[in-house]
């Protein structure tokens, strides 16, 4: 049968991201997907030669506009590990709260985009309506909506007083109620199920071999979540990785829905037992040594490799983003799929090419 190459992206209704796919199709079946990324590679890793390790937190936070806080947090944790800085417990809890708020707004962003991709416009709007409430909480507690700027080496810049904690807990009640309404539709609506169930199945072994991370890995039944490593305040909170066993697009959606409620629970736990005390310690000297730091972003495990030689500029700064790790799985999912399923499959890995083009 004759083969046709259909270009997909970088300007596509479901994926306004700088990634291009050449879809080799036979009739309506995709037999191969050839990716092109790197259109806007920013070279942020190279910037460590210009910015000293203290001010580089601002650069790390700008790697992504969605999981910005966790990028900054991971960078800070890596430097703190090299320099053996004792971060105050209160700062750990505050980082956990803001990290989980980031996860909620990222997952809601994805759910909205997924609904939009399926043509379910009202669900898209409801998802983003709830997301606005989360962004309002973030703005009230950090001063920022996209870039929080609240994490620094040695702790955090802002505290939450008793009033802010009370207001946040009260707002969480409303957010949780709204989340339950939105996720009920995602998990039970027949049109959502018809669009996602059985589409793009990844077995646990395939997900593992392809190096998948985050909800993509957990939806295939592999219980890997970097939060179980116990960084920040997670070692003192109760949580278990959310998993599904079906491995299809619906399972990837369901994992994110369940993780929304898990994040609400984690924020409540953290604010319920947040210890009093300082929020930062003074940092003196320059880092010397190396470390690989892993944390769990909304899209999955992010890896920061830092190497320092005792000067104020790092010798090497390398970020492996979750989307970078999930791209091979996306290409695998596209092989043999129907052309009409391509947007759904691309969306289900929650691609963030902005992160990947660090």
């Amino acid at each position, binding site marked *: 049968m004759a083969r046709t190459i259909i270009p997909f992206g970088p300007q596509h209704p479901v994926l306004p991201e700088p990634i291009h796919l050449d879809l080799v199709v036979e009739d309506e079946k995709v037999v191969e997907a050839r990716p*092109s*990324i*790197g*259109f806007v*590679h920013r*070279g942020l*890793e*190279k910037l460590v*030669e210009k910015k000293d390790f203290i001010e580089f937190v601002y650069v790390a936070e700008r790697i992504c506009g969605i999981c910005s806080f966790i990028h900054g947090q991971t960078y800070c*944790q890596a430097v703190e*590990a090299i320099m*053996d800085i004792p971060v105050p417990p209160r700062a750990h809890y505050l980082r956990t709260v803001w990290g989980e708020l980031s996860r909620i707004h990222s997952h809601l962003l994805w759910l909205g985009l997924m609904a939009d991709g399926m043509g379910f416009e009202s669900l898209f709007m409801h998802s983003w309506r709830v997301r606005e409430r989360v962004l309002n909480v973030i703005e009230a507690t950090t001063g920022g909506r996209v870039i929080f700027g609240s994490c620094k080496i040695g702790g955090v810049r802002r505290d939450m007083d008793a009033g802010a904690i009370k207001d946040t807990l009260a707002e969480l009640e409303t957010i949780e109620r709204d989340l339950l309404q939105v996720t009920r539709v995602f998990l039970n609506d027949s049109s959502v199920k018809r669009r996602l169930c059985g589409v793009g199945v990844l077995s646990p072994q395939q997900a*593992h*071999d*392809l*190096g998948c991370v985050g909800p993509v890995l957990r939806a295939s039944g592999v219980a*890997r979540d*970097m939060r*179980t*490593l*116990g*960084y920040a305040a997670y070692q003192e909170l109760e949580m278990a990785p959310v998993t599904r066993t079906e491995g299809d697009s619906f399972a990837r959606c369901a994992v994110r829905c369940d993780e929304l409620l898990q994040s609400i629970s984690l924020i409540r736990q953290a604010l319920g037992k947040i210890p009093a005390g300082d929020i930062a310690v003074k940092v003196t000297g320059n880092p010397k040594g190396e*470390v*690989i*730091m*892993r944390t769990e972003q909304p899209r999955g*495990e992010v*890896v920061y*490799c830092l*190497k320092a030689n005792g000067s104020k500029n790092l*010798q*090497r700064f*390398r970020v*492996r983003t979750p989307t*970078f*790790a999930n*791209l*091979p*799985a996306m290409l695998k999912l596209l092989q043999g799929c129907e052309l009409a399923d391509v947007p759904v499959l691309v969306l289900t890995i929650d691609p963030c090419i902005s992160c990947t083009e660090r």
Partner: protein
Amino acid sequence: MRPEQTLEVIAVAALLESVRAMQARGARLVQICATALPGQFELTYSFDLENRLASLRVEIPREHPRVPSIGSIYGCAFLYENEMHDLFNIQVEGMTVDFHGNLYNTTVKFAFGEVKAPAPKPQPALVPQRD
């Protein structure tokens, strides 16, 4: 908190065998990181074993840097290997998917392959003499 992790420096000739051993133990490939150092490149292959991080490191000379591809063992390694080529000009032999230098469209070719020269010491500013 410093995460628990191990690092083993191995010879380039032992890379494939060591990576195969990792795969046999059920390790997931986490990342490959190249670092340009004076006189050599340092390549770190990191693996996850039940949440424990284990890294293998090879050091290769800066002149004609070559390393075998691990793509036949870990199919997902092709992105890391193309990245090493495009940013550091490291020749990865036998890549399963080769973008031939087109994974990243950077203005400066192999920009990460250079080692930053030590900054010159700042000279005292000349203050104009007033009569």
